[in-house]
């Protein structure tokens, strides 16, 4: 046991005890009034003297039963370092909004919305305020479309308004969205009175005017139940993680690729290594990003092309 630092052990117990019981964040037992989207006109992501070139990012986390561990993991392990990671990757002023998504039909708080924040500590506050209701519908559908509706209608991004640059949405989940968003549910949860129900496709189209949305499935086992619907809505913006702990690095990679801050997927290797990602995890993250990179024409060279090059080389 080395140096007999019992007080250190006691302190570690206190910190880890809270970790194991999930109390680091998510202590709320009901919807926190500051996270209630009802009546909110707009959530703003603004430039400031400290952060003159904001890039707006949204993490919308499915907090229903089967996905409930992901917000904990994010808040305890990954989000604290995510902002730093983005700085390291050359994104100067990221602003992050945290949302929690549930089921508008059966949950008491199907949508919880924080504020855009620029520091890990402030984001952590919103994570703390989030209520992990942990129910969900059991219908293979969650109200992802309600979250997308809110973002499309009730956020204003300086990156978009001033610089014509879209923000990013990373929505985690493992179920389908409802095909239509009922106007009654919109009025009940957000407070807007609509003339008609909204098809989810129309919401996505509206959302894409100001955001680049990604739907992120935490592991390949969960992909089957929701792949068809999300492929139809988002195409190659459906991302499936090999391991859920990669989520922040994958999100950072998606931004860098889409912003074309790197020339090709392979360039991310060094960036991730420099940012402290272990050399074992780098290949997994790159592998996860490969399909999206390929669509952008930044992917790894295809096998056919490699063979072609080889043949050319031999002949030449």
């Amino acid at each position, binding site marked *: 046991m080395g140096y007999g630092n019992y007080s250190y052990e006691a*302190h570690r117990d206190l910190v880890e005890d809270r970790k194991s019981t999930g109390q680091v964040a998510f202590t709320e037992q009901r919807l926190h009034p500051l996270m209630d989207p009802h009546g909110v006109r707009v959530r703003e992501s603004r430039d400031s003297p400290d952060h003159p070139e904001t890039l707006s990012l949204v993490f919308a986390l499915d907090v229903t039963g089967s996905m409930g561990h992901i917000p904990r993991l994010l808040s305890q392990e990954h989000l604290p370092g995510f902002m730093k990671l983005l700085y390291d990757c050359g994104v100067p002023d990221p602003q992050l909004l945290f949302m929690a998504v549930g089921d508008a039909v059966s949950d008491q708080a199907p949508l919880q919305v924080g504020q855009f924040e620029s520091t890990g500590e402030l984001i952590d506050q919103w994570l703390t305020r989030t209520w992990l209701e942990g129910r969900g519908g059991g219908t293979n559908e969650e109200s992802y479309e309600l979250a997308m509706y809110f973002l499309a209608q009730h956020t204003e991004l300086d990156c978009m308004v001033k610089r014509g640059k879209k923000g990013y949405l990373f929505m985690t989940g493992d179920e389908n969205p409802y095909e239509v968003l009922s106007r009654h549910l919109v009025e009940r949860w957000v407070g807007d009175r609509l003339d008609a129900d909204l098809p989810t496709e129309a919401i996505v189209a509206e959302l894409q005017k100001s955001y680049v949305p990604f739907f992120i499935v935490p592991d390949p086992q969960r992909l089957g139940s929701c792949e068809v619907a999300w492929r139809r809505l988002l195409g190659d913006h459906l991302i499936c993680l090999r391991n859920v702990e990669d989520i922040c690095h994958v999100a950072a990679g998606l931004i860098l690729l889409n912003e074309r801050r790197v020339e090709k997927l392979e360039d991310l290797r060094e960036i991730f290594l420099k940012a*402290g990602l272990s050399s074992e995890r780098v290949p997994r993250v790159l592998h996860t990003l490969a399909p999206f990179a390929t669509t952008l024409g930044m992917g790894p060279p295809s096998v056919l092309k490699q063979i072609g090059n080889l043949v050319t080389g031999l002949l030449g």
Partner: protein
Amino acid sequence: MRHSRPRAFVVCDLGFGDAGKGLVTDALVRRSGARLVVRYNGGAQAGHNVVTPEGHHHTFAQLGAGSFTPGVRTFLSRHVVAHPTGLLHEARRFDGVHGGQVLSRVGISRGARVITPFHQALNRLRERSRGEGRHGSCGIGVGETVHDGLLHPEAMLTAGVLADGVQARALLTATRDRLRDEAQRLAEACGAQGLEAARFAAAELSLFSHPGVIDRWMSQVQPLVEAGCVVDDEVLGQWAEGAPVVFEGAQGVLLDESIGFHPHTTWTDCTPRQAMALIETHLPAHAPVRIGVLRSHGVRHGNGPFPTEADLGVRVPDHNGENPWQGPVRYGWFDAVLARYALDRCGGVDLLALTHLDLIARRGGIHAARAYTSAPGHALDFLARWLPGAEGVRLVAEGAGALPAQEALGAWLQRGVVPKLVDLAKAADFIAWVEQELGVRVGMTSAGPTVNDVSWSPDLAD
């Protein structure tokens, strides 16, 4: 020689700590029949190792190093900065290995300051935010607690308050709110040092944002209150049982807040002073005997001046190896100049205890610094008072004890001096040389880890 009055031994490290106070305390308890060990300074960061002749080992942090002797009690005086949950951890570890219920032999003064989780988190954040520039603190929060107590004496949580749940919670809440901004600032500084530091900072910082922490901590310290460990200072006289008492010091005089070399110091009085005051107040019938502890060589954990630092060429058997907060252990030659300085500034001792003498035989002799010469471009005036044969020389270190002067002295020791070494072939030569150089008799020596390796001079032989 018979003593009409029972003696109160005050064990005081004259170096940078790690001199062997655990062994000396354990040996004095066994030899003198003392029933009580009193901690008179420092706090939970102590690491005093004791190995028994039967091979049992414990690193004593808050339990007194006499605890291996059945029935011997520990009293943590009001000058100790206590860590209740750390103490419970230590007691569990001790009981788990050695049996018994050691807590039934522990008392904490009601007036002892208590380290809160917020002080500890702040300390850890501060250490981490400094990156490489650590100052050798153990990440427990002693310094933060003392410093905060100086600024807000009325808001200090003391052991006596722990039993009053309402007041304790109020003080904890106020402490948390008072320290939060600083914690936030330090966490941001950590965030600039990479992902791992940011993660570390987030975990520590989260202590400040979650209301459950205080309840959790209060329920963790409850066993200490229920075991009746919090007591009035008056028990000292009763617990002494008319037998000798051993006052076990922590740290070392060269780490003392006003004698050590700022900023490589600790927030505590490392001289025998506080022990002497406790004896005068609570044990008036006891005759104090101050025992200054030194190794046959120099040792220091972490950063800071160490003029005689050198490769000793042999492995030093040490329990106090590297720990993540103090950094690696460093060794060097015995330094009579610094020992004179320590003796002079701490008010002197009555006897010396020299430990690790076996090292001299193992390496076939040893070097020791008798004096310094100045490095090029530096003068020795600053140190004149503690150089050999310089009695009566003026005290050049004007304003000694003030932080700038201590810092300047430290800088001199790091850059301005070159030790002048003498060779001593045998342990007996070393002992005689030390007595002559320091002008203090050696009362006990050790040549191994246990009480069986201790030799006693006539001064302590009865």
